């Protein structure tokens, strides 16, 4: 598993593109928001937490379709499937690699982008906490979506249509934590619920992903 994780990380770093692309996309979304709704700082600071969450979510989505597609094309996915490692483990490692290469940079960069949107001062900590707690769920769910669309020709658009509704609960609780943090309110049950969703998806999603991969590869 560690070898597979190292391989995926190496590929992501050396092949270029994927690694920085999501981050750049996130930045562009954040930059476009003031153009769309106006530069008024008080308005921006009210929507900042939500916009940052939405941007991070879309950036996560962006790199999903390459998650299994490249391995599927060159046949290494079939090799992985016949390897002694259970497919569930492969699914989990893929999700972890996606989180490390895509989501983690977003989490690190989010506070800097928060400045651009004049996020209120108490919000920075909670933004990072909520993203840290929520993005693993996004990666795990996204891996499932990527597995569903792995062999399809026009998989990319379909992937968004399938994955985005699945992101709804995570987004609701994650953005709620960030918003309440930014407004200086008590966080309340939103953070435990977000963490609960993440733990649940991390525990169960690899099984669903593996089941999908098994059927998709057999066909």
């Amino acid at each position, binding site marked *: 598993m560690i070898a597979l994780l190292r391989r995926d990380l190496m590929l992501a770093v050396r092949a270029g593109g994927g690694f920085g692309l999501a981050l750049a996309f996130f930045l562009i979304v954040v930059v476009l928001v003031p153009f769309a709704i106006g530069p008024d700082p008080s308005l921006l600071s009210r929507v900042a937490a939500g916009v940052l969450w939405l941007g991070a979510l879309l950036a996560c989505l962006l790199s999903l379709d390459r998650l299994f597609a490249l391995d599927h094309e060159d046949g290494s996915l079939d090799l992985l499937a016949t390897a002694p490692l259970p497919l569930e483990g492969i699914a989990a490692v893929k999700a972890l690699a996606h989180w490390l290469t895509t989501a983690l940079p977003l989490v690190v960069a989010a506070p800097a982008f928060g400045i651009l949107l004049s996020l209120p001062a108490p919000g920075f900590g909670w933004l990072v906490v909520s993203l840290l707690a929520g993005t693993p769920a996004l990666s795990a*769910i996204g891996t499932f979506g990527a597995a*569903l669309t792995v062999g399809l020709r*026009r998989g990319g658009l*379909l992937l968004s249509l*399938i994955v985005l*509704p699945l992101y*709804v*609960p995570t987004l609701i609780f994650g953005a709620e934590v960030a918003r309440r943090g930014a407004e200086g309110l008590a966080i309340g049950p939103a953070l435990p619920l977000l963490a609960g969703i993440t733990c649940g998806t991390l525990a169960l999603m690899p099984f669903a992903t593996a089941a999908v991969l098994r059927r998709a590869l057999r066909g």
Partner: protein
Amino acid sequence: MSIWEFANPRKFTALSLKILPTLVGLSAVLVLGGLIWGFAFTPNADKFESTVKIIYVHVPSALMAINGWLMMLVCSLIWLVRRHHVSALAARAAAPVGVVMTVIALFTGAVWGQPMWGTWWVWDPRLTSFLILFLFYLGYMALWAAIEDTETAADLTSILCLVGSVFALLSRYAVNFWNQGLHQGTSIPVATGGRTVADVYFLPLVVAMAGFFVLFVALVLARTVTLIRERRLAVLDAQEARA
């Protein structure tokens, strides 16, 4: 004789074709009867005036939209466990019917909300969860349409249906948490048995709900039979191409 006999497509088709005319007739009588009774022969409610009458379309369609997804879930489970093709095709057949029911419920709700709440749309938990249900239906249908091999498609959509159901439920309660709503609670709580709708509205509503239910069953059966025949045609074509 067990229900699994109808996992045989031939028997399923034969039975469906036999009972379809009855079902169609019955649903026409019930839907028309319920709607005409509701529209023409019930008094206007105090606060709502005549807008109350949209309930006879809104509630039954919303009911079938949710139960349609539930039926797809059961069919998906049967397909994954027992691998009966009819079950997978029935799930596929139910999706477009369910999506139409969802749209009807959303549309009638908007039409009712305009005069009553003063807005076509609010981000109320019930409205929002229905919109999310609509998105789930779309994703499910898109996945069916995208995969060519029918058996793989059945497998993958079934798993999507299972996972989607979990997340649809999660979303349902997440939006409750996220925003308190305008939409009234249920007037016919099945669990507690009490109800806040007077008989004069309730009876036509029950007729309309029964009508929508039979209509749903009839549409799904007809579509399933069509899909079975489509599959058979494809097999015949393939055989001819090989010969």
